[in-house]
Structures are given as structure tokens and as C-alpha cells.
């Protein structure tokens, strides 16, 4: 198989181009947002949000059928409701935010499953659950472009507030900043991008495109800006590789992208020179060795 067959051929199809563009756009916003989620220790909250989109999709399907726009709006509303509801529950009751998210998303997910089991046909919904490059419609691509652009603008304009709210929210507040608005904005962006990633990646796997590049970058980078750039570049590279792989092997695109990212992550976790497991193990053994020496 020549280079041409491997890399160029797949993209002679319109749907492949759409899938690739969509994945690259989402890599940009996903890499940025994922880095912040990881640094703010909100990785699992992203997972909760992605599951909570389901009832929105199901309700939209029941009301409007295959209308893509309705599905997007439904998912968006469900995600924002979960985020808002958790924020309210954690402010108004004794429950902490992580527990509030955990509770609300399971309720939403259960409602989604209940509604889905009432649906007559589920074939087309599989695209939304597991993702497919074939499934990226023109409106899906437009949504990806929109959410990616909004995310980029927010990060460029609000970069300092985002850094402060992530690193030291108390300092942001003490200098007159508005931390809760930054927090709410980041949650809303996460929901928007999860919805946009539904077609290419699937509801559940979309988070992989956000988190895996970020945690991998976290194993390599000691600079904030470098971490963001590294995460975006890695997400884009693995999206491309994953889509090519998906074309040739017939594996679902979301899964193949996440698997590519997963391989890089596992390799990094093992062999990253400073923060990886191997480096730390060597250091530990060397230290113990030197202690034994000095004891003798």
C-alpha cells in the first residue's frame, strides 16, 4: 500500500473530509478545555456531563425525529441543566459539588436510558452514542467550527482569568476578579464542545479527545502555555491518525482516535523522562541504594 493509498485516498470522499475537519476543530477546543479540566481536577465531572446529554438527545428524538439541530439543542439543554443543577445543589444544600454532579448525572442518564428503551428504532442514534465519521453532517461540521471558534476566542481573551481561576482562585477574587463567572463559562464551553463532538466521537468517547491529550501533556510540560499547545497538537495528530486508521480498518472513528491517544498516553505515563513511572522508579531505587551504601 503506497503513501497515496494510505493517507491521501481516504480524503477524496466528502464525508471523510468533513469528519477530518470536524475532528481537527474539536482537537483545538478539546485540547484547551481538557487541559483546564485536568488542572482543575474536574476530569470526572466532564465524564458526568457527557453522560447527562443522553436524555436531551432522546427527548429531541421523540419530539422531532431525525432533525440534527434538534438533537444538538436537546443535548445542550440537558448538559447545561446538569451543570446548573449541580451548582445550585452544592450552593443551596450541604452536598459538595462532586457529589452533586455524581447524583444528577446518574438521574439524567437513567432518564435517557428509560426514554431510549421506548424508542421504536435505535439504529441512527448509535452514531451519537459511539460516533462515526460517516455521520458528520454539514450542520455537525458547522457546530464544530462554531464551538471551536468560541472556545478559542474565550481562551485568548480570558487567558489570564482562566489561569488565575485554575491556579489560585483566592488571588483572583482578592484582586477583584470574578471566579464563579470563569467557572460557569468553562462548564458551559465543556457542554458545548461535548455536544459538538457527539457525531464524530460519540457522547461517551468525546471526553477522551479532551482529557487524554491533556493528561499526556501534563506528563511532559512544566509551562502552562506549552501544556496547552502540546495538548492541542497531540489531539490533532491523533485525530488524523485515528481517522485514517478508522477508514482502513472499519473501526468506529471515535474509538480509533481515543485508542491512538491512549497508546501515546500509556507510553508517556511509563517513559516520560521526569514525571513517568519508569523515571520515578529508577530514582526511588537509586535513592534506596545510596541509603544502603551510606548505612554500610
Amino acid at each position, binding site marked *: 500500500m503506497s503513501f497515496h493509498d494510505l493517507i491521501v485516498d481516504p480524503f477524496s470522499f466528502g464525508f471523510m473530509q468533513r469528519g477530518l475537519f470536524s475532528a481537527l476543530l474539536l482537537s483545538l477546543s478539546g485540547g484547551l478545555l481538557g487541559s483546564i479540566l485536568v488542572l482543575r481536577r474536574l476530569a470526572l465531572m466532564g465524564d458526568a456531563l457527557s453522560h447527562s446529554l443522553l436524555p436531551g438527545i432522546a427527548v429531541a428524538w421523540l419530539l422531532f425525529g431525525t432533525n440534527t439541530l434538534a438533537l444538538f439543542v436537546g443535548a445542550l439543554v440537558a448538559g447545561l441543566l446538569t451543570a446548573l443543577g449541580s451548582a445550585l445543589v452544592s450552593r443551596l444544600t450541604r452536598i459538595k459539588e462532586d457529589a452533586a454532579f455524581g447524583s444528577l448525572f446518574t438521574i439524567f442518564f437513567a432518564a435517557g436510558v428509560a426514554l431510549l428503551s421506548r424508542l421504536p428504532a435505535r439504529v441512527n442514534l448509535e452514531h451519537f452514542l459511539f460516533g462515526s465519521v460517516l455521520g458528520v453532517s454539514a450542520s455537525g461540521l458547522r457546530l464544530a467550527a462554531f464551538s471551536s471558534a468560541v472556545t478559542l476566542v474565550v481562551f485568548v481573551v480570558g487567558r489570564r482569568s482562566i489561569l488565575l481561576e485554575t491556579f489560585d482562585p*483566592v488571588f483572583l477574587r482578592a484582586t477583584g476578579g470574578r471566579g464563579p463567572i470563569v467557572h460557569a463559562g468553562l462548564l458551559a464551553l465543556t457542554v458545548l464542545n461535548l455536544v459538538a463532538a457527539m457525531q464524530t466521537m460519540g457522547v461517551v468517547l468525546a471526553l477522551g479527545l479532551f482529557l487524554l491529550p491533556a493528561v499526556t501533556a501534563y506528563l511532559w510540560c512544566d509551562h502552562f502555555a506549552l501544556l496547552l499547545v502540546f495538548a492541542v497538537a497531540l489531539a490533532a495528530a491523533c485525530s488524523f491518525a485515528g481517522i485514517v486508521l478508522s477508514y482502513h480498518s472499519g473501526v468506529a472513528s471515535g474509538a480509533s482516535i481515543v485508542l491512538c491517544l491512549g497508546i501515546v498516553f500509556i507510553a508517556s505515563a511509563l517513559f516520560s523522562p521526569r514525571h513517568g513511572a519508569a523515571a520515578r522508579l529508577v530514582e526511588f531505587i537509586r535513592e534506596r541504594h545510596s541509603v544502603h551504601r551510606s548505612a554500610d
Partner: protein
Amino acid sequence: MNSAPNILRFRDVTVRYGRQPALQDVTLDIPCGSLTAVLGPNGAGKSTFLRACLGWLPLTRGEIRIGDAHPQHALPRLAYLPQRHAVDWDFPITVRGVVEQGRYPALRLWQRFSDRDRALVDRALAELGLTDLADRQISQLSGGQQQRIFLARALAQGADIFLLDEPFTGLDLLAVEELTRIFRSWEARGRTVLAAVHDLDIARRAFGRAVLLATSVVAEGPIESVLTEANIDLAFRRGKGARDDPLRMARTAEFPE
């Protein structure tokens, strides 16, 4: 030196959390250019006192003024330093990166770092002896050096009133001495330090003035006149502690062989 615009004034300040008073009828002046330790037992209102200075808490009654301004209008002059354990030391950021944050509040959204901003950051790093460490990731520094990063950020911010929450916690002896030296040199430059401290011995060595709190003010003024046995007793044992109860003293002072 102690002219009117340089005084932190508390008048009748009362703060309640729910119905529980955290600060009660606090009336005092803190002259700027002084080192003041805020002392008292747990729950005496030390943190509340600092937060009230920042204008974070709705005052149930009374007024706080910095010079002629309300705290909200004096924010650039105020720097609040977090407790050391509240910081994520694994965060991918260098020493310089943290100190640069001190300039952020002064910058508009679209503004970039100017030469003046960079000069202020360099000067703050130099003053606290961090210039050579500026490009290190923040976990690669010792406890005392880490504390200095945040002092440098406050300097870069252009603050002259420093509110610190337990700055000495977790520092070794050498770092405590170093921090004390820094505070003394700041005092000489007319800067104001207001720090919640729980260790009375450290407070005696490092600070010239003190406010002793037990929800209301037990005593305030020069630290030696504040930290008398009677006042400590009153603040920490509500005046009915070990001294009045010989039995209890025997129980706590003697350990089984």
C-alpha cells in the same frame, strides 16, 4: 509617616455567619508601615478579620476604611497571600509565571505585557532573591523559597498592605528567620504586614504589634503589652482555664511514667 491616608481603621465591625458572631464590635487602628500579628485561638476570627479587610464579607455592622477609601477601592494596594498547603505545587508553571500573575489585575483583557510590567516582575524577583530560580517549576523549590514566590507576586502587584494567612506554618527554623528578616526590611520601607499567626513565640520574635482576638478584641497595641499572661489567659482559656482549676492543670500537666 502615620498620616491619615495610611491607616487601616476598624469601627464597630461585627461579622456574623448565620447567627454566630465571628467578629464582635472590633474598633481599632492599624498604622501603616507596621508589622501586626493577628493572634487568637482557633475560631477566634483571625481569618474573618483578614477577609473583612479585603471587603469579602458583608459587615453586619460597622465600617472598615483604608485611608479614606473602602476596601473595594483600595484592592491594588492589598495583597492576600494564601496558605502554602492551598497551592497545587505540581501545577505546570514557573516561578516567573507566578510572579507575573501579580501584574494581571492591572492589565486590560487585550493588553499585552509591557516593558514596565516586565521590569516590575524582575525587580520583585530580585528583591526576594529568586532571580536565579525564576525559570524553575514551582515544586522544585524549598518551603521558604515557595513562600517567597507569593511575596514576590504581591510586590509585583504593587501592593503595600500585605494580608497573610498563617505564613509561618510548615516552615523550618531557617525559613522562619528568613521570612522574619524580609518582614523587618518591609517595615523599614513603610510597608504594612498583617498576618494571622497561631504560634505566639514566632509572633513575639517577628512582629512589633499585635491584635489579640477572641471574637472581640482582647487587646491590641505593641506586642509585649498585648501578650501578657492575663490577656493570653483571657483569649485562649476564656479566663477560666488551667490557672483557675488546679485539678485540670494536674490532669494535663502530668504524664504517666
